[in-house]
């Protein structure tokens, strides 16, 4: 694949991440912070997020297994996780976090469990999509500045 084709592919991958609701406006904020002195900023942030979120998800998993469930603690963990997920623009993950918190408020343990499974799935899917995107972007070389999704 030549450079132009690679770059086109990168653009399409990026666009589909927005079109399919994986990412929101906040991701563009990160792209705007990337420049010549911070050329890999977005990827570094995504790496940091996935490193930290592995720990957060483990803590939530453990807390869910405890009986009786401490919904206040679960809500607190999820609040934190929602915060960092929204900071990278992880739209679907954020939505699941919000759903989880609503189930916590209602004291609905089953709802929490179901939502947590959905959350982990979205989290893993986004990770795969971002990894593929970053890899392609590195191969294609620098592309033009971030633009808002149509």
């Amino acid at each position: 694949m030549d450079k132009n084709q690679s770059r086109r592919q990168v653009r399409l991958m990026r666009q589909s991440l927005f079109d399919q609701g994986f990412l929101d406006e906040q991701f563009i904020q990160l792209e705007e912070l990337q420049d010549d002195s911070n050329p890999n900023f977005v990827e570094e942030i995504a790496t940091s997020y996935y490193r930290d979120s592995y720990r957060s998800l483990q803590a939530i998993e453990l807390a869910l297994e405890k009986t009786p469930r401490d919904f206040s603690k679960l809500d607190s963990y999820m609040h934190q996780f929602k915060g960092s997920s929204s900071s990278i623009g992880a739209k679907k993950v954020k939505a699941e976090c919000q759903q989880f918190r609503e189930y916590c408020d209602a004291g609905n343990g089953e709802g929490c469990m179901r939502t947590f499974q959905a959350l982990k799935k979205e989290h893993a899917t986004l990770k795969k999509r971002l990894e593929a995107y970053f890899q392609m972007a590195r191969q294609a070389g620098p592309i033009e500045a971030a633009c808002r999704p149509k």
Partner: protein
Amino acid sequence: MEEDEFPIGLKILVVDDDETCLFILERMLQSLKYQVTKCRGAEEALCILREDKGKFDIVISDVHMPTMEEGFKLLETVGLEMKLPVIMMSSDDNHETMKKGIIHGACDYLVKPFQRTALRLIWQHVVRNRRNMVALAAAVAEPKSCVLVEDDDDDDLVASPAKKRRRLVWTAQLHHQFVTAVNQLGHKSTYYECFTN
């Protein structure tokens, strides 16, 4: 910091227990030409601030670290001890939490995730805080005295030879003299009556 470079180089301490948020905030602030120091929690923040009180111009801190107590405790301590402006931030947009932040002394409360533009004007809090500190220091330093004081030789009121303007404090003596003057000049309206009662 040179005045004409302001607000470039404003020294900001950022406090958040979420590393991803810390990195993003640091980058946002650096892109606005501010100088940033990061730390992960209230305890670390206080160590850094106490080490060199004059080093920072403003603090930006998360509320939940991991609970609200840590965030608000830091806010109060920084306000009282270091007298620095503190901006609180959180993904918690609950009105009660925001109100609590302002009541505890936050000069602003930013809801996460926020855009870079939300940080552009934070230097205004530094200016406002400095002005308030100067005014407070002046008020504390000045003794509570009247602009008009009695001359040593007679009972005439003379302007005190103060180097700077003093605040007027309405004393009983002044009140007596005012009432005497009004009675001599005559009442023109009931406005004066409230002073003579």
